[in-house]
């Protein structure tokens, strides 16, 4: 179905040649891809506090620390006073080596550069630079700058421990030499301050304008003996890198890559990754599981275009670059509405005789309940079926207490186990190994999956409002979407479901036609989820926020004793009205009774009356705020 990809001709390899030039990548033909220009997307949305972590000038570890802002390593750094970052406290710390600048902004002299002095006490976990002596940091800074090529935006951190600067000063390096995530973090942090020749400043002055865009695009960490923990801070300091080589390290399992996994929201700009020469890859290849390795890698690194120098076969979209600073971004109003522009509408059926849909559903669902094997006729040999369990407890159903509701005694007996064991294909959760086997193709395979699932009862003859049907034509066929509920055996608890079909006319001489089906099912996807009330699709206005008069009736158990005593003086049949008015007006029982008595016990009239006079009511007319 998919043709195999042809590598794009002339994939330019600016970054790659830089890597090659530095002896970082093997001389193979493909390589780190060049990146799209202009760059600098997402700078503002990816805004990070650039409070530089603690740098203790005195090395005393005292509680008040002088912090050096390394947000720029360039000499031309000028900070207009108007743009003072909000998180900068003016330093007047005793003992700090501050120099009062004419702007009255405190600065620290370091390496002949001036840095604004910041004061903060960041959380311990972020003290990347803490405890490093000035001299050590100078050496690391020298190393990082030496290894960076601003032309290609390539940072070559290959074989760190062999570098002469490192050797000369005896710096502890991450990886083979025993250094930890923190040593690696220092390097990444310093790297995050590197800039290209042209310094771009964010135009969004509401943000700190001194934030420069992250500019390092290519990082090679080859030949360092790294394990997973050394990557802890890579995304924190270099979240926008595009090309990453981890060649010839000691990454053993997928857990080692969690700190950089796109599935976990890390390194979301990554286009090329090299994992060659790591056990996580090589062990799989040596046992003939190279395909599995690729699958798992691509599942974790969603944005990749090249993995280990091979193009990733993928389908593209006109990617919405969610980045207000992108030069091409058109300024549009941000969403700010406080109401819904449209009501909940009734079933939408278009381009097809509604009888086609209802005939199909009124045959399919009862047969699914009682005669699943006979449904084989409704599928073609190429038809697909899968089901997914969404096991999340629905928020509103939880508030309504549907799981432990006196009128729904079987809900607690429901179990997800038969669905999970039966092959739920929730791709949000499923491991890759089951993706193919949980997709059932052709009647016999589909029926086999059906008969392994719990017995269901869809009560189509009961309340029709328990189901919602939308149907309209699409290219491949008629799209039919059903939302509703069924009773699950053996617990007899209620589940909600969504089921989407693609239908096509049954060919004249087909098995489907011979068995009374006007249509065949091309695709059948079924989501099973926790029970929610069908009033979710009740037609009418939809609310964004609550209004007081949508409050449910007050639970009498939550009433104070005096109010409860008053309620008990009311005939039992009238108590629900009192409790409803109490909920929807927040009036206490006494005032609710007065209001109902004055309005012939008509709740809507009482509520309208209440709304007219509520401003004149004394505070003690109302229930205490927290009572529900």
């Amino acid at each position, binding site marked *: 179905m998919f043709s195999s990809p042809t590598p794009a001709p002339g994939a330019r390899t600016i970054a790659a040649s830089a890597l090659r030039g530095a002896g970082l990548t093997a001389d193979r033909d493909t390589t780190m891809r060049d990146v799209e220009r202009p760059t600098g997307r997402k700078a503002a949305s990816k805004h990070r506090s650039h409070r530089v972590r603690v740098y203790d000038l005195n090395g005393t570890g005292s509680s008040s620390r002088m912090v050096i802002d390394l947000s720029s390593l360039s000499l031309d750094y000028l900070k207009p006073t108007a743009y003072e970052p909000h998180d900068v406290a003016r330093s007047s710390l005793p003992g700090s080596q501050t120099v009062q600048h004419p702007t009255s902004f405190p600065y620290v002299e370091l390496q002949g550069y001036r840095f604004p002095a910041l004061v903060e006490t960041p959380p311990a976990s972020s003290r990347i630079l803490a405890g490093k002596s000035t001299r050590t940091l100078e050496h690391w800074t020298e190393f990082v700058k030496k290894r960076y090529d601003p032309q290609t935006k390539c940072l070559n951190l290959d074989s760190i421990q062999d570098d002469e600067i490192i050797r000369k000063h005896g710096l502890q390096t991450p990886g083979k030499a025993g250094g930890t995530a923190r040593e690696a973090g220092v390097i990444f942090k310093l790297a995050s301050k590197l800039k290209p020749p042209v310094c771009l400043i964010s135009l969004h002055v509401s943000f700190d304008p001194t934030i420069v865009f992250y500019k390092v695009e290519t990082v090679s960490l080859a030949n360092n003996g790294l394990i997973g923990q050394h990557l802890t801070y890579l995304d924190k300091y270099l979240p926008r890198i595009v090309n990453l080589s981890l060649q010839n390290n000691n990454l053993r399992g997928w857990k080692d890559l969690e700190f950089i996994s796109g599935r976990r929201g890390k390194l979301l700009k990554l286009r090329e990754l090299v994992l060659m020469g790591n056990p996580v890859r090589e062990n799989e290849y040596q046992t003939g599981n190279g395909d599995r390795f690729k699958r798992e890698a691509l599942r974790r690194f969603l944005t990749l275009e090249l993995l280990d120098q091979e193009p990733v076969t993928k389908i593209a979209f006109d990617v919405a670059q969610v980045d207000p600073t992108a030069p091409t971004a058109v300024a549009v109003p941000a969403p700010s509405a406080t109401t819904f522009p449209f009501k909940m509408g009734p079933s939408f059926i278009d381009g097809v005789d509604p009888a086609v849909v209802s005939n199909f559903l009124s045959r399919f669902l009862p047969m699914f309940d009682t005669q699943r094997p006979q449904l084989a006729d409704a599928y073609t040999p190429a038809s*697909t079926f899968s089901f997914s369990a969404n096991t999340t407890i629905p928020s509103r159903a939880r508030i309504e207490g549907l799981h432990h509701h006196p009128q729904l005694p079987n809900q607690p007996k429901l179990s997800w186990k038969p669905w999970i064991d039966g092959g739920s294909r929730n791709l949000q959760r499923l491991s890759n190994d089951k993706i193919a086997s949980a997709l059932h193709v052709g009647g016999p395979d589909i029926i086999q999956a059906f008969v392994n699932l719990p017995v269901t009862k869809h009560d189509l003859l009961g309340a029709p409002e328990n189901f919602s049907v939308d149907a309209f034509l699409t290219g*491949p066929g008629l799209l039919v979407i059903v939302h509703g509920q069924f009773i699950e055996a053996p617990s007899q608890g209620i589940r909600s479901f969504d089921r989407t079909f693609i239908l096509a006319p049954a060919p004249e001489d087909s098995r489907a036609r011979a068995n009374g089906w006007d249509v065949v099912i091309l695709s059948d996807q079924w989501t099973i989820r926790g029970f929610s009330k069908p009033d979710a699709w009740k*037609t009418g206005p939809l609310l964004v926020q609550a209004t007081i008069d949508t409050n449910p009736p007050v639970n009498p158990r939550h009433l104070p004793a005096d109010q409860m005593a008053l309620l008990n003086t009311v005939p039992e049949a009238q108590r629900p009205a009192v409790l409803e008015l109490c909920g929807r007006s927040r009036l206490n029982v006494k005032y609710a009774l007065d209001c109902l008595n004055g309005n012939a016990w008509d709740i809507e009239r009482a509520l309208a009356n209440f709304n007219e006079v509520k401003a004149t009511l004394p505070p003690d007319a109302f229930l205490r705020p927290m009572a529900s």
Partner: protein
Amino acid sequence: MSANPPAPATVPLTTADIEIATRAADAFTRIYYAAYDSTSRLSELPKLYRPSSALVWNGTPFQGPEGVVSMVQSMPPTKHEIQSFDCHPIPGTSPPSLLVIVSGSVTHGLGAAGNPSGTSSKNKEGHPRVFSQTFMLVPDSEAPPPSKAGELAKYFVSADALRFVG
């Protein structure tokens, strides 16, 4: 009903096909909901549609990128959470159309935090809704040929149907 039913698929689905479809659905759902939830929703979301695209929002139909704009421009801010999704390559289409279904929750506006004081803790309004959304993703025959290595085709949303279901 469609006048020309799709020819029976002659090429069976391969594991690679299924993986590519799964990755596409994974990427698409992330792109789509990130765009929907972003402040630049109004410029980003229509890019995923074409003039022929059919949309239905809780029973109300819209057409094409302009329909997307009229649908979302007065929609309150959203935050979607994907809880489950699934994807099928549609038999008989090549490159295959992809049917993607998503189940999750969506919070509108300020959520429960934006409810007025006096709102009962048992009042469900303002709390996240469950949504169910179905997308038909199809290759864009008018898109320029893929320029990147590995890129098979550019897809767009040809059909999109959403309902609040909980």
